[in-house]
């Protein structure tokens, strides 16, 4: 972790190093070279843009198709037309339109899930790392326990219980996603706690709450940013996998996982139904992983994987 910078003459006894996104721990501006522009562009054009402006971009209805146009191939194949650039599925729904609306589902599910996981994981991780003792014991045990839960099986059971819906899938994914956050934050808090500026803050009479929020949290923030980025990929894969086996977003909603499932039996006749949504998942997750790896190097050179 970073070394506390003590500014002379301020009289402030417990200045904590204030990590800055744009400056490294020596106060130098971080360099903006090697920014992964292509992955960022993919995330922007394949996920963010379609998700936000789906109603403006998409020409067709994502849920209702034209039956007479069913199984139209993509435009470059024989029999394809520009009306349906990526073809249609067995109900005559436009694949591109469904992909665009599917981005909305992926973005919404991953954003909410990551936020919930981030908040719960940080609170538990901070408390466990800072207070130690029985709080640490319980949180660590909970983390281990949630790592050993049979996720897919539980998801199937829960969905059988309350039916598949957007809320169900968000709850299922949130319940499991907090554990890695908590584990990471706990570990970092343990090392930050040993820093001089924490002792000074304690001597100065700051409450544990204030120390955690003003002094510890800013020091684990960079890790949280990196983890959140990398976990987006995990959430998108998990959501689409559950949707694929029927335990996620219910039909006829155009989740990318549902779309792959829709075309599964038609692969030999109409490969485009399953192929494009899966490709979209692959590209978006790949981009988040690349961006996350870069962020880690960018924010914390110590953690840089040797190049």
């Amino acid at each position, binding site marked *: 972790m970073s070394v506390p910078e003590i500014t002379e003459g301020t009289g402030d006894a417990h200045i904590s190093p204030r990590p800055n996104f744009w400056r490294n721990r020596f106060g130098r501006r971080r360099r903006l070279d090697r920014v992964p522009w292509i992955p960022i562009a993919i995330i922007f054009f394949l996920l963010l843009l379609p998700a936000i402006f789906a109603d403006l971009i998409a020409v067709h209805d994502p849920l209702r198709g034209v039956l007479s146009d069913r199984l139209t191939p993509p435009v470059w194949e024989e029999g394809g037309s520009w009306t349906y650039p990526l073809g249609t599925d067995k109900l005559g729904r436009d694949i591109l339109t469904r992909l665009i609306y599917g981005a909305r589902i992926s973005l919404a599910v991953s954003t909410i899930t990551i936020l919930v996981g981030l908040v719960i994981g940080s609170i538990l991780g901070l408390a466990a790392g800072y207070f130690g003792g029985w709080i640490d014991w319980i949180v660590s045990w909970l983390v281990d326990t949630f790592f050993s839960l049979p996720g897919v099986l539980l998801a199937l059971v829960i969905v059988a219980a309350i039916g598949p819906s957007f809320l169900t899938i968000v709850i299922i994914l949130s319940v499991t996603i907090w554990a890695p956050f908590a584990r990471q934050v706990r570990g970092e808090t343990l090392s930050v706690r040993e820093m001089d500026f924490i002792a000074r803050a304690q001597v100065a009479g700051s409450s544990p709450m204030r120390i955690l929020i003003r002094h510890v949290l800013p020091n684990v923030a960079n890790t949280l940013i990196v983890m959140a980025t990398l976990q987006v990929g995990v959430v998108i894969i998990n959501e689409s996998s559950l949707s694929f086996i029927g335990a996620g977003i219910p039909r006829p909603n155009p989740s990318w996982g549902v779309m792959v499932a829709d075309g*599964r039996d038609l692969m030999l006749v109409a490969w485009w139904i399953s192929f494009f949504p899966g490709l979209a998942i692959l590209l978006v997750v790949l981009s988040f992983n690349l961006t996350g790896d870069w962020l880690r190097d960018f924010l914390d050179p110590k953690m840089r994987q040797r190049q």
Partner: protein
Amino acid sequence: MARYILINSFRGLLTIIFVSVVVFSLARLTGDPMDVLAPTDMSDEDQDALRALWGLDKPLLEQYVIFVQSAAEGDFGPSYLYRSETAAEVILDRLPASLYLGFVATILTIVVGVPLGILSAVKRGTIYDAIGRGFALFGQSVPEFWLGIVLIWVVAVQVGPIPTSGMGTWQSYILPSIVISIFGIAALLRLFRSAMLETLGTEYIKLARLKGLSEWRVVCKHALKPAAIAPLTFFGQLSVRMITGATVVEIVFSWPGVGLLAYEAANARDFPIVQALALFVAACVVVMNLMIDIAYAYIDPRVRLGEGTAS
């Protein structure tokens, strides 16, 4: 050391109990299994008789006690779906299919992942490294279910008829084991690459080189051993995944293992099988974690004397 093992075993036991309570309560939430399992023309008396047979008419707490008893006896009670068998028998029937596939996939993961990781580290910055890292990135990002479907499609169109669904000859293992191992290969490659890079940069490796040892000996004898410790945790996770079956992959390839069984049982509300499977998975994870913790404590005294567990 004994104290360390004891405390960790206690934690593991608590975890298994927690999982059993969670799964039990969730299963009871799913509604009456009679809706799914009983034929529509079954008379009310017959339904009640069946409920009584399965203990569904008793209070929840009593049902849980019965469940724990049956778990202790090892049979987990009669399966609802396969009437004549107990849940344990059904699972044991399906376990070999998952184990065989898991074994093949594990071998594939190690045989491909470890050498690629080492190659990537030793030839850092070359085309080998780029290919290795590209592969790792792909393996971590590709959705398994889609990869399975695309592979089936490519093989069916390009290669012709090889079995792409169900379990049969050795050829039927090819595609599922590739799909299952792709994530493991990627993770193992990354882990070995960074662990190797770390050890290759140490002083004793420089000394080994100065002694005039061949590059082969330096890499294989001196660098590989310490580097192999770091991915230990991962081997644990890998083996658990291989034993407990990969549900999504088994569904895509109609592979008759425990993963597919979990899917069938959850949809059919076959409580005994769902509960038994959940306990089985949790127990596998707990035991594996315990073994890894002990292995770490054995290798590194700081773990057992100092605080916390290795992570």
